[in-house]
Each structure stands twice: as C-alpha cells, then as structure tokens.
C-alpha cells in the first residue's frame, strides 16, 4: 500500500517530465500535451494530500475535478489556436514563433 511519499514522488516525476517536454519540444501539439501531463501531476498531488492529510474533507478532490474541467477547456482553446496558427503560418514549430521580442 503506497503512502503519501510515493504519490508525491510520482507527481514530481510526472511534473518534471511534463516541464521538460514543454520547454524543449519543437512541436506545439507536443508542448500542449506536456502541459496536460503537468496538470495531471498536480492533480495527483492534490488528491494524495486530500486523502492522507485531511481525509474528512474533500477540498483537494474537488480541486482536481475543477482542474480537469479547466484543462479540457484549455485543450480545446489551445488546439483551436494551433489550428489557426497552422492555417496562418503553415508551421507549428516553436522556433519559428518568435515575434514576442524587442
């Protein structure tokens, strides 16, 4: 039976993988997927804390549900932006998307 530490370790590993992917992947769709991994890492931490620290209350679990909802909306919006970007620029490579500079 895994305890709090194990869950948090899993969460940290997932978060780091997600962060790594979000920072180094060239393809915007992959970056978006990595962001989803990070969100889910957070979800695991939330639920774990809820279960092991304050078992009588459900705040962490409720939070996780909210995050999933928002993540779904975010994915819809993000993919829409990526589609528009592709239609406009013909590429989804992050190195080419560099207009936000001096």
């Amino acid at each position: 039976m895994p305890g709090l530490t194990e869950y948090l370790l899993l969460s940290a590993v997932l978060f780091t993988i997600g962060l790594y992917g979000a920072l180094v992947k060239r393809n915007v769709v992959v970056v978006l997927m990595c962001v989803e991994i990070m969100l889910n890492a957070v979800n695991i931490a939330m639920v774990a804390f809820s279960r092991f620290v304050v078992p009588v209350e459900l705040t962490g679990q409720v939070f996780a549900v909210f995050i999933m909802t928002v993540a779904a909306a975010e994915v819809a919006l993000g993919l829409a932006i990526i589609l528009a970007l592709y239609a406009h620029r013909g590429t989804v490579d992050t190195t080419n998307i560099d207009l936000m500079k001096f």
Partner: protein
Amino acid sequence: MPELAIWSIIGAPLASFLLIGLGVRPAFGPRQASAGYLTILAIAYSLGMSLWVLAETLGAEGHRLALPTHEVLSAGGFSLEVGLLVDGLTAVMLIIVTAVSLLVQVYSQGYMHGDSGYTRYFSYMSLFTASMLLLVLANNLVLLYVGWEMVGLCSYLLIGHWFHRPSAAAAAKKAFIVTRFGDFFFLLAIIFLFTQTGALVISDSAGEADVYGVVGKTLTGAALTWVALGIFAGAVGKSAQFPLHTWLPDAMEGPTPVSALIHAATMVAAGVFLVARFFPLIHAADTAITIVAVIGAFTAVFAASMGMVMKDIKRVLAYSTISQLGYMMMGLGVGAYAPAMFHLFNHAFFKALLFLGSGSVNHATGTFDMRLMGGLRKAMPWTWGVFLVGSLSLAGIPPFSGFFSKDEILGAAWHRGDTLGQFVFWMGLAGVFMTAFYVFRALFMTFHGEYKGGEVGAHGEARHPHESPRVMVLPMVILAVASIVSWVANAPGQNQLAGLLGYEGEEVQTFPLALSLIAALAGIGVATGMYLFRALSAEGVSRATRPLYTLVARKYFFDELYEDVLVRRVFYRGLAAAMDRFDRTVVDGTVDMVGLVGRNAGRVLVRAQTGQLQFYGVVLSLGVLAILAAFLLWGR
C-alpha cells in the same frame, strides 16, 4: 466703544474696494464718478469713526482701549490670535491716514477726471486705505505683516497706474522689489522673534507673552539686537531710507495724488510707524537704536542734497520726503519719540499739500519739469498760496507747523549732549539749510519769473496755464490750514500729543532753535538770491562746482551701483551665472546620468529577449529552482 465699530474703520474702505472692483463698471457704466463718491463716502465714514476712537482713547485709562484678541487658528500648541491695538499712537495714525486719504480722494475727483483707469484707480485707493488702516490697527505681528505687504502691493499697483508707459511699469517694479528687500529682513525678524519667544501678539492686556513683555526677559542680548535690526530693515525699505532709498524718486511716475497719499503722508511713514510701534523693543537694543539715529541723520542730509539739484518738481518733493523721514528716524534714534511722531503728523499734512500743489501745477502745464514753468503765480494764485504755506512749513519757519516738530527733534538731539546727539544735531542743521533752499528753489522756479510755456504740444504750441477746478483747490486749502495749525496738537509747554503717546514732552531749547531758524532763513535767502533776484547765477554755481554737481545730480550713482554693479555684475553674472552652471552640470548632470545608465543597461539586457517562449520558460524554471534551493539551504 464696540469693537465692531473699530473693525468697520478697516471694513468701510475694503467694502468700497470690493464694490468698485466688482460692481461699478457693470452697474453704472459710463457714470464712473460714482466710484469716486463711493470711495469718499467710505473714507469719510472711517474718518468719523477714527475721531470717535481718538475721543475714546483720550478718555481711556493709560490712553489705551482694552480690546480682546480672537483665536482664528489653532494647531497643536500654537494659536494665532488676532485683535486690534488701539493706543495713542494708533489713534494719531488713524487720524492722519483717514484725513489725508479723504482730502486726496476729493482732489483725485478733479485730477483723474476723464482718465481711462478711473474706476481702477479708486478701487486701488480704497484698498490701499484699508490696508494702511489694518497695518496701523493690527495687534499681531502676522496681521501687521499682512497690512505691511498689502500697502506695498497697492503702492506697486498705483505707481504702475499708467502701466502702458514703460517708465511707470519699471518704476512700479523697482519700488516693489527694493521694498521687498527690506520686507524680507522684517519677515526674518518676525520668524526669529517667534521661534525665540513665541510672542506674536504685540501687546495684550495681560502683558506677559506679548512682544512688549518679552523684551529683556526671554529676548535679550544679541537676539534682541538682531530682531530690532530686522524690524528696522523693514522700515528702511518702506521709508526709503539710505541705502534702500532709490525706489521713492522713481515712484513719482504714479499719479500725483498717489504720491501725495502713499509716498508722502502714509505708506512711507509706515516705516517710521513701525519703529515707533516697536520702540520699546528697539530702544532696548543700544546698537540698533544708534543705527536708527545714524541712518536717519545721514539720510536726512544725503537726500536733501539731491533734492537741491533735481529739475523735476515731484522729484524734489520725493527727496524731500526721504529727508524728512530721515528726520523722524533720527528723532526716534535719539529717543525723541513724541517729537518724531509729531513731525510725522505735521509732515503728513504739509507734504501732501506740496504734492497736491505740484499736481495742480502739472494739471495746468502738462509737465513736472520746473525749467518749463515759471511765473505761474498770476495764473494760479490759489495754488501759489498753498504751495507757499507748505514751503514755509517744510522749511521750518514759525508759526508754521514744521517749525515746531523739526525743532523739537533737533532740541532733543542737542539736549542729549553726547557724541551721537551732537552728530545728529549738526547733520539735522545742515539738512534744515538744504531743505529751505530746495523748497524755495522749487517755489521760485515754478511760480516766479517768466512763464516758459509748459509742455510743448504736438504742434509746438505753448499751454496757457489756468487755476485748477474747485474740487482740487478745496482739499489743498484745507491742507494748508492744517499745515498752519497742526502744531497745536503738541503746542510747546502743553505737549498734549506726547501725553497721548505716553511719553514726556520735550522742553523748548532756545539755542538750537535759534540756530535752526538761522539755517532755514539762510537757505531761503540763498534760494531767493539765486532764483528770484538772479544775483547769483545757478548755472554759474553748478559750473564752478562741476564734479560735485555731477555727483549729486546723478544721485551719487546709486542707481548705477545697484543696477549695473550689484544686479548685473554681482548678482546676474556672478551669483546667478554660478547657480546656472551648478544647475546645468551637477543637477542636470545627475539626472542625465541616471537616464544614461538605464538606457545602456537596457541595450545590453535587450539581447536576453529572443522571442523564444520556451527559452523564457527555461529561465523562469531555473529562477524558481534557484529560489527553492535558496529556501531549502538557508531558509529555515
């Protein structure tokens, strides 16, 4: 008498100022004479009230009305209490200010007739009278200072009445700035006095924490001397004493009634009044009172010498005013309080009279240049008559009033018997000779000999002089009567005025009296010889003493000294230029450098902004990690 009645002495002219300033032009339009009537009405009311105050003061115990002070401002331990101080000095000044002001307003009705600035003129005259009355009545240094600055402002506005003339605008500016110079030291003295002693009320009924009360208690030694000198510096500026005398002759650019009221009878006398008001304070500081005497005596002779060579009749009278104010100052300086105030009282009447006379002459000839006048006696018999009375009074010929007060001052100086008294007496005596000479020179050049044509018109035609209208002659006649009889206010042996002021009268000193009479008669004699009988050519004398004459006629080069050397070279090119350099290099340099550092740092740091969102993310993550590491390592 009710306190409100005394406040209304100030209130009436103030109301007149507001009514004229805000209401007359829209309400009456072209019938502007109403402005003059309103002013006269308001000041006549003030005169009536002032007479009541005088009567009450004469009957009051210690010649001082007990009036409360009112707290108008309170902050922490500080409270500003304003009130009115009515003692003998105030009562006398009230009579002088309101009486002369009333006569001058009546005269102005004629003199300013048809002037485009008629309503403006009368509104400022009302404001001036109100300010002067405030200055005289104030029982608080702050309130007194407000009145003090307001009369300065009105002086500026009225000198610059014909502001479209560059010379008038410049003269107004000069008068304002030069007097401000003295005012600044006066203000410093007030602040210093307050920080040292906390006294702002001049004299309250308890007599403890007021200005009179702190002298010799919390205010002693060097502090007392500095406060006394600061107050005197204010008086020097206002009364045009040496070395701040240069503004008064230029102030003659204003309308003549303004000169008569402000620059002869009242505002310039405010300096003497100030010294008199703080006489217990200044008299307690030996150094300060000696300086008052020396400056007064020096100014009396110094200004009179310039009066002897001026060609403009008003400038002669302006220097005469400076000189006579010097007499009052030196009177106060030698401790002759009552004679000095007596001279102020008499001088207000006869000098206002002389100024109004010169205005009447100007009305007839269109000029103030005495070389263009002459022979006006036949055309203007009334003006001639009153001018003669004023001249005799100024010269100090008995039984005219100037004789009594001037000789009381000289007698008091003689009576002292010490070096200072001797110095003041002999300077005063020289001044008496010069005074008699210059005023009779002016009289003869203006009214005797042949008429020289007055102001030359546009087509070269001469002006035919005529007597001034009755509205101008009447005030002059009243002033002439006052000049003859005003000495009864302090008749020898009776000394009512001295008693009212709370000082002992001077005994008549026969020897100095005889000397000064001889000096005055000698001055008149020389003037008669030179300008009436032409036994001695004036041009010849001036040619024979060429360097000296030039020095005096150019006013001892004081204007050049102040304007070229002090203002342009020392102040402008020296001080101001140094300030300018400091501002440009140090202040601006610092600001520029701050900007430069920011811009150059930005030029370097801008390279970090690549537009690669993921690079930003890396930096952000590293930052979070760094903070986390720092927290884990040293945080707990």
